[in-house]
């Protein structure tokens, strides 16, 4: 499996800004008075609450269960009382509210009963997947796809398990710190994943700007006497941590458009997910906290914190010496793909890897017309023609944008970052995708409406026919009674 690394098209060399937040060890964030837990912190169906307002919950207790296959449960990050179940502002680009469970913490941190599995190697993979599902583990790299699904090979042979430790976005260092501090947990988690997938090979792909983390992983591998896991450094170039890009760099294979990595025998997980799986399986602890990088120009003491889900972002900013009121922009995620939250009071969720707080932002330059310079096309890691996508999205010609493979866009932001005209390209693509999905939905709805209407017309016609038939029958009966008389009269 070892071999030369490939190069994905496009990409950017960006200033890392990572050392700011790696100066001190990770601390536990203070326990907030209230935890706000959105029911929808993952890709898939919203979880369904299984608690009532007023109910006392224990740390680690499931408070919302997964609804359907692609879904994930939510657990109480600390012990306390459920005080409210209702719509609260959540971290989302829309700034809208969504159903949340609010827990008032009691400060005792009393755990519920845990069921650790020590000898995972003797366990059936499907049992392990179920444990991981029940622990509410989702991809912690940022997308939040339920992890147990990606640990199910579905009858396909998984040749290579890739652990994404690239962390290619500037500013974000939570995975870096996790690898430095909890390398052994990550390795144990990877072993569980390998067992579940029966993967022949395993590579940890890490950008070469994280030598300490790499050293920690290598040391842990030696200490634990584990073979078959290879730590490979990849050149630091955004977006090397994109799943498709990392797979290409490490294996030379391209994930087919509209396809999944498993279709080419590869499964890719984030390193933080591996650590969470270890905690879930060998300690029986569900996913209730994560490392979060708090950094940016508005944060005097940038650092990483271990944060319970549901903790309001404002409290983390305060713990890092920032005044939430003076923050002009608070981005959840990195500067390239993260989104600005509408208020600092929204909670940290499973996919919150970084809080990037800035103040004194320069005014955004006004967008100029596209001069077709092609800088975007050079930067695009998917080899798209961003200027054509923009042209058609701008003109509302969504089918043409689709012909230019709009849906292969991973929204990494490279094109917009290098655009000399400062066109918000990614927003145009998101807009176009949203419109296409909406039209698709409307089309489906129209089809249903047509069907229902036609069914109704048919039913009415049938009713009418039946009525007429009855009528005719009655008439005939009536006629039958009178007819003989009539005929005889003639």
């Amino acid at each position: 499996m070892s071999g030369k690394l490939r190069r994905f098209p496009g990409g950017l060399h960006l200033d890392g800004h990572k050392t700011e937040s790696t100066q001190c060890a990770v601390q536990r964030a203070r326990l907030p008075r209230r935890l706000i837990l959105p029911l929808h912190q993952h890709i898939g169906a919203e979880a369904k609450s299984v608690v009532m307002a007023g109910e006392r919950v224990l740390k680690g207790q499931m408070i919302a269960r997964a609804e359907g296959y692609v879904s994930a449960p939510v657990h109480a990050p600390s012990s306390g009382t459920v005080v409210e179940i209702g719509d609260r502002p959540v971290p989302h680009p829309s700034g809208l509210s969504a159903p949340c469970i609010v827990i008032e913490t009691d400060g005792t941190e009393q755990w519920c009963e845990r069921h650790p599995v020590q000898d995972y190697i003797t366990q059936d993979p499907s049992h392990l997947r179920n444990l991981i599902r029940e622990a509410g583990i989702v991809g912690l790299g940022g997308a939040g796809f339920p992890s147990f699904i990606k640990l199910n090979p579905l009858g396909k042979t998984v040749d290579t398990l890739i652990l994404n430790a690239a962390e290619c976005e500037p500013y974000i260092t939570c995975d870096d710190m996790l690898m430095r501090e909890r390398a052994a947990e990550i390795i144990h988690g990877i072993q569980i994943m390998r067992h579940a997938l029966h993967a022949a090979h395993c590579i940890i792909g890490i950008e070469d700007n994280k030598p300490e983390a790499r050293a920690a992983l290598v040391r842990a591998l030696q200490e634990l006497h584990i073979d078959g896991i290879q730590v490979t450094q990849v050149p630091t170039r955004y977006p090397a941590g994109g799943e498709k890009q990392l797979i290409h760099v490490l294996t030379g294979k391209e994930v087919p458009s509209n396809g999944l990595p498993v279709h080419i025998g590869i499964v890719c997980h984030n390193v933080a997910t591996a650590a969470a799986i270890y905690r879930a399986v060998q300690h029986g602890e569900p996913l209730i906290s994560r490392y979060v990088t708090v950094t940016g120009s508005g944060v005097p003491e940038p650092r990483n914190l271990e944060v319970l889900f549901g903790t309001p972002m404002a409290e983390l900013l305060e713990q890092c010496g920032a005044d939430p009121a003076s923050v002009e922009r608070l981005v959840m995620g990195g500067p390239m793909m993260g989104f600005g939250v509408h208020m600092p009071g929204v909670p940290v969720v499973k996919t919150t890897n970084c809080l990037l707080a800035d103040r004194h932002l320069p005014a955004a330059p006004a967008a100029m017309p596209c001069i077709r310079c092609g800088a975007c096309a050079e930067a695009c890691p998917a080899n798209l023609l961003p200027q054509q996508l923009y042209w058609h999205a701008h003109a509302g010609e969504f089918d043409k944008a689709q012909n230019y493979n709009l849906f292969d866009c991973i929204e990494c932001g490279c094109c917009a970052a290098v655009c000399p005209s400062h066109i918000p390209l990614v927003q145009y693509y998101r807009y176009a995708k949203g419109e296409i999905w909406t039209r698709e939905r409307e089309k489906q709805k129209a089809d249903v409406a047509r069907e229902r209407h036609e069914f109704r017309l048919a039913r009415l016609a049938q009713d009418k026919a039946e009525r007429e038939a009855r009528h005719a029958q009655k008439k005939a009966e009536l006629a039958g009674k009178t007819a003989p008389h009539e005929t005889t009269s003639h």
Partner: protein
Amino acid sequence: MLSAIIAFTALAAVFGLILGFAAIRFRVEGDPLVNKIDALLPQTQCGQCGYPGCRPYATAIASGEADINQCPPGGEAGIIALADLLGRDPKPLNAKHGTLKPKMVAVIDEPLCIGCTLCIQACPVDAILGAAKQMHTVIEQECTGCELCVAPCPVDCIRMEPVQHDIKTWKWQTPLEAAGGHA
């Protein structure tokens, strides 16, 4: 002069024959036009176009009886789609048939409902549930927002409300709208 006329006439005849033959030989049996038009209509079945439903309107367009700009729920996108299909120039919505409105859904003020079933009979897609002397309710998912149920209600307990955007249906705006509509 004469030879030129003869030559051109001969050419015209030959090409005419070829084209005529091709038209018969390579004829494509497509979806009938009415179906194609109907597929582009929003299936609101509201009748604002002046025809009793989307399919009759599609038939009328196909026969040249109706214009393509009589469908307010289809909006501008709908008119453009029809224009593309029929190879015509798009035109603005005919105001006689209504104006552009956000998507609506019917809501029954349930305490007021007397259970007369008139709205159930009016609904073109069977999206209202209820029985005589029983309270009625709208199946929100199936409601097309056609407003046909509003007028028949004897106690005026049905109102149209704009469809609420929640976090699941939210989508990114175009930067043009965000910037106030100026490109």
